[in-house]
C-alpha cells in the first residue's frame, strides 16, 4: 500500500507542491478553528509534511526537489515587500534615523548574543557561525553561514523556527516592553523574526508590515556585512 502510494506520488511531477498546499491548508484550518496562535499554519504545515514523509518513507531530498516551485516563489515574494514599503515611504523618510538606529541596535544584540553564547558554552567555530546569522531571512543567513564555515541547512532551520517564535511572541513582547508605536513594532518584529515575523506584522497593520519588511532588508544586509567581523572574534 505504502509502495503503491509512493509510486503514485513520485510519478506525478508536482506532488511536493500538492503535499505542501494540503499540509499548510490543514494548518490554516486548525488555526482558524482553534483560534490559538501556537497553532501556527507554518509550524503545523511543516510538522504534517515531516510526518507524511516519515510514514511513507519518502526521502526529504525527493520532496524538496518536487516542492521547488514553492520555495522558488520566496524570491519574488521578498521583492514584493517593496510594495508595502513604497506605500509607506513618507513615513520611512520622516523617521529614517530612528528606524535605522533600531535595526542596528537589534542586529548588534542578535550578533552579540550569539558571540556571548559561543563564549559561555564553549561552542566550536562551526557551531558559532551556524547560530550567528539566525535572525535574518534564510536567503541571506544560509549564504552567510555557508560562506563562513557553518552548517547552512541547520542555520536555515533555526532561522525558520526563530521566525515562528517571533511571530508567536510578537504581540506579547510589544505589550511587555510597552512598544506601542506601529513603526517601532514593525522594526522590532522584522529585525528579530524576518519574513515569517513580517507576515504577522502585516496582520497587525499596514505600517507594522511595511516597517517589518524594510527591517528584513536592512537587518539582512547589516548582518551579512557584520558577520565576518564577529567571526573574527573567536579563534
Amino acid at each position, binding site marked *: 500500500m505504502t509502495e503503491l502510494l509512493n509510486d503514485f506520488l513520485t510519478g506525478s511531477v508536482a506532488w511536493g507542491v500538492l503535499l505542501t498546499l494540503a499540509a499548510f491548508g490543514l494548518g490554516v484550518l486548525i488555526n482558524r478553528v482553534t483560534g490559538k496562535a501556537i497553532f501556527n499554519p507554518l509550524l503545523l504545515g511543516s510538522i504534517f509534511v515531516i510526518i507524511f514523509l516519515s510514514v511513507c518513507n519518502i526521502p*526529504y531530498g525527493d520532496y524538496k526537489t518536487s516542492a521547488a516551485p514553492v520555495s522558488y516563489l520566496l*524570491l519574488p*515574494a521578498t521583492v514584493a515587500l517593496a*510594495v508595502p514599503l513604497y506605500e509607506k515611504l513618507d513615513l520611512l523618510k520622516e523617521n529614517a534615523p530612528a528606524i535605522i538606529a533600531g535595526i542596528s*541596535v*537589534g542586529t548588534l544584540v542578535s550578533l552579540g*548574543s550569539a558571540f556571548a*553564547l559561543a563564549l559561555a558554552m564553549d561552542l566550536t567555530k562551526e557551531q558559532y557561525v551556524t*547560530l550567528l546569522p539566525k535572525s535574518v531571512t534564510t536567503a541571506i543567513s544560509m549564504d552567510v553561514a555557508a560562506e563562513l564555515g557553518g552548517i547552512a541547512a541547520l542555520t536555515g532551520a533555526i532561522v525558520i523556527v526563530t521566525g515562528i517564535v517571533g511571530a508567536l511572541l510578537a504581540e506579547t513582547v510589544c505589550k511587555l516592553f510597552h512598544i506601542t508605536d506601529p513603526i517601532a513594532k514593525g522594526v522590532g518584529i522584522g529585525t528579530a523574526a524576518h519574513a515569517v515575523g513580517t*507576515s504577522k506584522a502585516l496582520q497587525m497593520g499596514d505600517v507594522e508590515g511595511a516597517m517589518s519588511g524594510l527591517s528584513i532588508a536592512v537587518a539582512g544586509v547589516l548582518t551579512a556585512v557584520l558577520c565576518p567581523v564577529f567571526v573574527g572574534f573567536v579563534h
Partner: protein
Amino acid sequence: MLPLPVPASVYGLVLLLAALTAGVVKLEQVKETGTYLTGIFPLLFVPAAAGIMELWAEMGQLLLPILIAILPVTVLVMAAAGRTTQALTARNKKEEADHD
C-alpha cells in the same frame, strides 16, 4: 556582480522600490501581485522548514544553545530594536511639537 554578500532578492526589493519611486513602474501594476505574494509568505517556507527532519543529529548536539538563541535572544532583539526606534520617534515628535 557586486562584491557585497547580498542575495538577489534584496537587490530586487531595492530595484523595485527605486522603479516605483522613479515612476517607471506604477503602483497599480504591481499592487495586486505584490499583496498576493506577501500574503502567502508563510506557505513558501514550508519546504525549507521540513528540512529539519534531516538535521536531528546536528540539532541534538546543539540543542541548548539553539534553544537559548531562539527563545530569549529573539525576545531581546525584538525588544531592543523596537524600544530604540520608539524612543527616537517619540523624541522626534516632541521636538516637532516644541517647534509648533
